[in-house]
C-alpha cells in the first residue's frame, strides 16, 4: 500500500510537471515568440485565431488575442502528410526526432518547480527526481539531443541537412566545455549539486545575482557581494552557452534558413518536423529553468518572504508550493521573453566566429573565472598574504592569456581593393 501511494505520487508528479506544465509552455512560447517578434518589428502578429463561435451559430468569434493559434498550428501539423523521402535512411530518419525531444523532456525531472505541498510531515517536493547530481544530470542528458540533430542531418541523405548536422556537432563541442566550466564557481559556492537544496539556499541567503537578504556569520554581505563578480561572469557564459546549446538565434547555425534552407530538418514534414520544433522549444524552457534555478533564485520570491509562503496552509494542507510554482513560472516566462528578445535583436554569428567565441574566449574566461571564484571563496581562510599572491597570479595568468589571444589573432592582409590586382 505504501509503495502504491509512492508510485501514485511519482506518476502524478511526472504527468503534472511534464505534461501539464512544461509541454504547454512550448506552444505558449511559440505564441510569445510570434507576437513579441511582431511587436518588435512594428507588426501585429497572430491575433485572430480563437473559438469560432460563428460556425456554431454565434454572433461573434472569441479571439483571446490569438492564443489558440499554436493549437491551430499543431492541428495543422497533425493533419499534414507525413512524407518520408525515398532517399533517406529510414530507421535513423524516424529515430532522430525522438532523440531530439526525449532528452529535453527527461531533463525536466531534476528541475525544482516549487517548494513542497501536502500535510505537515507528509510533504511532497515539487520536483520529479530529487537527484544529488542535478546540473550534471542535465548536462549529460541535454547534450544527447545533439545526436538527434546530427542523425537527422546524416540520415536525410541530402546536402543541406548534412551541413546542418555537422555544424551542430562542431557547435556542441565548442560550447559544452564552456557550459560545464562556467557553473563550477556556482557549485563551489553552494557546495551542493542538489538543485532543490541550491534553491533553498538562495531563498534563505539571497539569490546568487541578488544577494541582498539573509545575512549571517557564515554568509556576510561583503563575501556575497564579492562573489557577485565571478557569479555574474559565470551567468554570462552560462547563458550564452545555453543559447548555443538550444540552437537559439545568435547560434542557430544548424538550421539557419538563409543558407541551409531549413538545416537538419529540411527533409522532415508533419509531426516529425513538429517534434524537432517542440524539442527545440522544450530545450529552451529547460535552459531557462536551469539559469533561473542556479542564478536567479528558482522558485523563491526573495527578500526573506519564502519561509512565510512555505508556511501558508488551507485547513492543514500546505499550499506554499503552488505559490512558489506560480513564481517560478513567472520567472520562466520572463526569461523566455528574454530569449525571444535576443533572437530578434542579435544577428546570427558566422561559423568561425562561433568557434572562436567558444574555444578562445569563453573557455579561457570560464577557466579564469573558476580560479577567481575559488580565490574569493577561500580568501577568509587563506590570510592576506596568500590571497594577494593568488590575486597577483590570477592577474598574470589573465594577462598572459590576453596576450596569447592577441598574438594568435590572424593578421588581416591589407586590403588594397582593386589596386591590389594591378
Amino acid at each position: 500500500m505504501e509503495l502504491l501511494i509512492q508510485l501514485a505520487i511519482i506518476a502524478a508528479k511526472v504527468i503534472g510537471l511534464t505534461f501539464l506544465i512544461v509541454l504547454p509552455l512550448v506552444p505558449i512560447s511559440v505564441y510569445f515568440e510570434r507576437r513579441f517578434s511582431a511587436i518588435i518589428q512594428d507588426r501585429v502578429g497572430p491575433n485572430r485565431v480563437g473559438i469560432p463561435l460563428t460556425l456554431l451559430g454565434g454572433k461573434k468569434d472569441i479571439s483571446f488575442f490569438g492564443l489558440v493559434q499554436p493549437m491551430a498550428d499543431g492541428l495543422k501539423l497533425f493533419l499534414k502528410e507525413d512524407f518520408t523521402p525515398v532517399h533517406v535512411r529510414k530507421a535513423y530518419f524516424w529515430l532522430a526526432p525522438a532523440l531530439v525531444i526525449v532528452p529535453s523532456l527527461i531533463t525536466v525531472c531534476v528541475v525544482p518547480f516549487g517548494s513542497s505541498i501536502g500535510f505537515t510531515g507528509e510533504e511532497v517536493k515539487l520536483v520529479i527526481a530529487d537527484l544529488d547530481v542535478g546540473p550534471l544530470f542535465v548536462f549529460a542528458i541535454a547534450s544527447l539531443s545533439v545526436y538527434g540533430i546530427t542523425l537527422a542531418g546524416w540520415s536525410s541523405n541530402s546536402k543541406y541537412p548534412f551541413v546542418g548536422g555537422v555544424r551542430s556537432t562542431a557547435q556542441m563541442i565548442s560550447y559544452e566545455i564552456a557550459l560545464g566550466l562556467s557553473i563550477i564557481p556556482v557549485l563551489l559556492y553552494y557546495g551542493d549539486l542538489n538543485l532543490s537544496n541550491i534553491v533553498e539556499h538562495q531563498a534563505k541567503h539571497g539569490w546568487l545575482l541578488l544577494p541582498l537578504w539573509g545575512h549571517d556569520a557564515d554568509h556576510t554581505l561583503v563575501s556575497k557581494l564579492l562573489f557577485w563578480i565571478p557569479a555574474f561572469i559565470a551567468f554570462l557564459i552560462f547563458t550564452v552557452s545555453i543559447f548555443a546549446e538550444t540552437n537559439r538565434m545568435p547560434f542557430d547555425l544548424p538550421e539557419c534558413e538563409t543558407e541551409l534552407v531549413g538545416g537538419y530538418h529540411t527533409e522532415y514534414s508533419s509531426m516529425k518536423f513538429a517534434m524537432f520544433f517542440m524539442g527545440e522549444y522544450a530545450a529552451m524552457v529547460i535552459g531557462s529553468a536551469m539559469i533561473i534555478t542556479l542564478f536567479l533564485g528558482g522558485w523563491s520570491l526573495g527578500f526573506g518572504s519564502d519561509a512565510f509562503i512555505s508556511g501558508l496552509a488551507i485547513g492543514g494542507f500546505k499550499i506554499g508550493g503552488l505559490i512558489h510554482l506560480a513564481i517560478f513560472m513567472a520567472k520562466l516566462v520572463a526569461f523566455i521573453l528574454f530569449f525571444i528578445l535576443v533572437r530578434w535583436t542579435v544577428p546570427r554569428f558566422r561559423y568561425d566566429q562561433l568557434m572562436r567565441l567558444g574555444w578562445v574566449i569563453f573557455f579561457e574566461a570560464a577557466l579564469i573565472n573558476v580560479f577567481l571564484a575559488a580565490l574569493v571563496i577561500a580568501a577568509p581562510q587563506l590570510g592576506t598574504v596568500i590571497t594577494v599572491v593568488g590575486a597577483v597570479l590570477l592577474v598574470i595568468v589573465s594577462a598572459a592569456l590576453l596576450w596569447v589571444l592577441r598574438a594568435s589573432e590572424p593578421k588581416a592582409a591589407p586590403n588594397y581593393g582593386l589596386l591590389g590586382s594591378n
Partner: protein
Amino acid sequence: MPVVKVKRPELAAGEKVYLGAIVKGFFITMKHAFDSLRGKTRGADTLKSSGLGATMQFPEQRWDDQMPEYYRGAPTLVTDEQGRERCVSCQLCEFICPPKAIRIEPGEIPNDDAWAKVEKRPKEFDIDMTRCIYCGMCEEVCPEQAIFLRKDYLITGGSRAEMVHDKKKLYEIGGVRVGLVNKWNELK
C-alpha cells in the same frame, strides 16, 4: 584624380567586446516594442495603423477612402439615366480582353421595345473573375462607355461558378453612370 587611401576605422576596445552593442540593440528593439504597443510607431498615422505597430487590420479597417480616382477594381456594366443598358454587345471587349475573361452572347432588341433603334443588347454577359487581370482594356475599348472598372476589390467566392459575374451581378455592382455619351437619347 589622385588616389585617396581611406583608412578603415579601428574598433575601440568597448566595441570589440561586443556586449555593449548587444545591450544597445536590446534598447532599440524594446523601444520599437513599446512604441508599437502604444501606437506610436513611426509612420503609424499616415499608414492608418490599427494602434498596434504600423499595421492596418483589414476587415475592420479599410483603405477605401484613400483609394485614388484611377483605381482599377472589378469591371462592371452600367446603365444610363433612363435605365437603358448601355452595352450594345459589339463584343469589342470580349475580343480585346487579354486573359479572355469576358464572354458575351448578343441578343436582339425586339421591335416593340422603346429602344428598338439600338438593335442589340447582350443576352448573356459573363466576366470570369478568376481570369480577369484588372487591366482596364475593356473600359478603354468600349465605344458605348458601358463597361467600367469600379473600386470593388473584394471579389470572393466559394467555387469557380461563384466567381463568374453574370449580367445581373455586373449591373448590380456597376449601377448608373449619368451624362456620358447620349447618342441613343433622341430628346437630347
